[in-house]
């Protein structure tokens, strides 16, 4: 199996004036291509910090991070932005769509920053929108969509660049339980097609949809186990 994320002794220290707070105290983790992993832990455990480091939004204070074979701890800010654009597809709890842009334009944003020309951008955006079941909604605006639809747009946006990992931070936190199941089965479907998915959650229900559960507590890895009773929703997603 090809390693996608390889963390070695990752530490993160926050300094607030005089006070130092160590959010991660040396985390080592290996995630392979095609895995679907849940990062679990109570609030304050450091799982969000770990997600931000994996997502190249933040830098570790110490340790090495190799993303798809490249040491990303030494990258400049611009290179990190490029790697984020190319390798990471973010899905956030609060959807984080740009309200002034249409669905299609939202999905096109990462392609724009990658320098993809307009006709190809549009074609690829329409393709992923169809994949998440939102064909025909491309000219709607985020305010006209339901929560589940918004999160699908966010998933589509995360997929347009065909990233190495789909990184979802509490993706069902703002959704009702039925919609949450829909979104989780979408992730499962994408994972079945080979996409590496990392889901940060504090809900065991949600973690059950993944194939591997990594628990963080007090900035350290508490456990890392395969999920033998992986939940599969009935029916799945069109």
């Amino acid at each position, binding site marked *: 199996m090809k390693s996608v994320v390889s963390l070695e002794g990752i530490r993160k220290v926050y300094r607030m004036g005089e006070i130092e707070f160590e959010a991660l105290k040396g985390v080592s983790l290996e995630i392979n*291509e*095609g895995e679907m992993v849940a990062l679990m832990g109570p609030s304050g455990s450091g799982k969000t910090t770990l997600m*931000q480091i994996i*997502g190249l*939004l*933040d830098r570790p204070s110490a340790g090495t991070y190799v993303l*798809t*074979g*490249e040491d990303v701890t030494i990258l400049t*800010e*611009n*290179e990190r*932005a*490029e*790697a*984020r*654009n*190319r390798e990471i597809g*973010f899905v*956030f709890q609060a959807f*984080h769509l*740009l309200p*002034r842009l249409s669905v299609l334009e939202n999905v096109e*944003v*990462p*392609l*724009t*920053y*990658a*320098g*993809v*020309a*307009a006709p190809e*951008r549009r074609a690829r955006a329409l393709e992923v929108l169809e994949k998440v079941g939102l064909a025909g909604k491309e000219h709607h605006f985020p305010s006209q969509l339901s929560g589940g639809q918004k999160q699908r747009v966010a998933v589509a*946006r995360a*997929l347009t*660049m*065909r990233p*190495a990992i789909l990184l979802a931070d509490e993706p069902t936190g703002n959704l009702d339980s039925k919609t949450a199941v829909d979104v989780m089965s979408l992730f499962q479907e*994408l994972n079945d*097609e*080979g*996409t590496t998915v990392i889901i940060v959650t504090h809900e065991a229900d949600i973690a059950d949809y993944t194939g591997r559960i990594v628990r963080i507590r007090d900035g350290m890895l508490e456990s890392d186990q395969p999920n033998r009773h992986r939940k599969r929703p009935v029916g799945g997603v069109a």
Partner: protein
Amino acid sequence: MNPARDVPQTHPAKPRSSLAGMNPLQVVSIAWRAILGNPLRSILTALGVIIGVAAVIALTGVGQGSTANITRSLESLGTNLLTVSSGSGFRGGPPGLVRGGPGQTITLKDAQAIQTQFASQIAGLAPVAQGGQQVKFGANNMNATIIGTWPAYASVRNAQPEKGSFFTEADNQGRKRVAVIGYQVAQDLFEGTDPIGQKIRIAGISFTVVGVLPDKGNSGFASPNSQILIPLSTYQQRLGRSNNRGEPTVSQVYVQGLDKNSLKDLQNAITDLMATRHKKTSPDDYDFNVQNQADALASVNQVTQTLTLFLGGVAGISLLVGGIGIMNIMLVSVTERTREIGIRKALGAKPRDILTQFLVESVVLSVGGGVLGILAGLGLARGVGNLLSITPVFSPSSILVAFLFSAVVGIFFGFYPASRAARLDPVESLRYE
């Protein structure tokens, strides 16, 4: 096995400009939508620049228009003109401002001496004696400036009658009571009927109208439209004055040079002659004054240019204030859109992309304000021009400068907010509520 990643990835990919896929039009359209997203605020923000640019355009337009007006009316009164007048000082002032009065020191003999001495170097010479008088025709009467002069006045001061003809040397020799009347005089006294051959009364003396001058416009100083020209000898017999030695005086002598280049030399030579004749050794003692029309034009131009520059400067300051307004709103906008910046960064925007986005937005705002300001300024100048009966003059360069200046204001005052946006930390901006 991985259909989602079926496109071969070159890794690590070469960094390339992330703006390569965004043509400038698209960058502008993103900025434009952000501006339209808050139309009232955008208009209020741009208002500073609109007012600033409008003020610059209107003030310089009216200023240049009035300069052109004065220049034109001065030039319509004769070219290559020297004016010899009484008194010292007021060097460089507009000719014709020194009126007749008890202090007249130039005599008719001075004029004749200049005529004789420089016959080959001058195109024409016309001494002038003048004074205000009541003029009557039938029941109509008005106050007009009566000018006694020689027939050469017609060519020297560009006063060819539009109707009829100028009086002749014979009229002057014979002290004939004939008059060439200004445009306004003809309008006021004759109200549309033909004045030629009619008799008017100047200070109770009957004169026959032989010519009517064309409309010369209002120069602001002693308007030629309300003048009446009569032979100098007639004037001196009927209305004239003399100095304390009993020699008849004139208020000015107009001398027309042959060309522009020799005018300065002629001016000096006439000054020397006058100094000799008046027995003055030091320029401080001169009781006469030889003015060059070019000097007068230059001084008028200088006054209006200074005024235009001053007004333009005041307007420029308001443009600067407008720029500060843009900076203020852009800072607010960056704060409000912290989350958007975080999202864009998470999706791969580089600091430079964010910088460009906000910078373009402030430039679109200020340039949009600049364009509206130019239009408003053109309209304003027309309105003010109508009020002051000045045709505003817009040089393409002043419009271009105003436009570029507004763009520079946008870049200058947009840069700080934009660079603040570009430097925002993605983690913190995503967390921002």
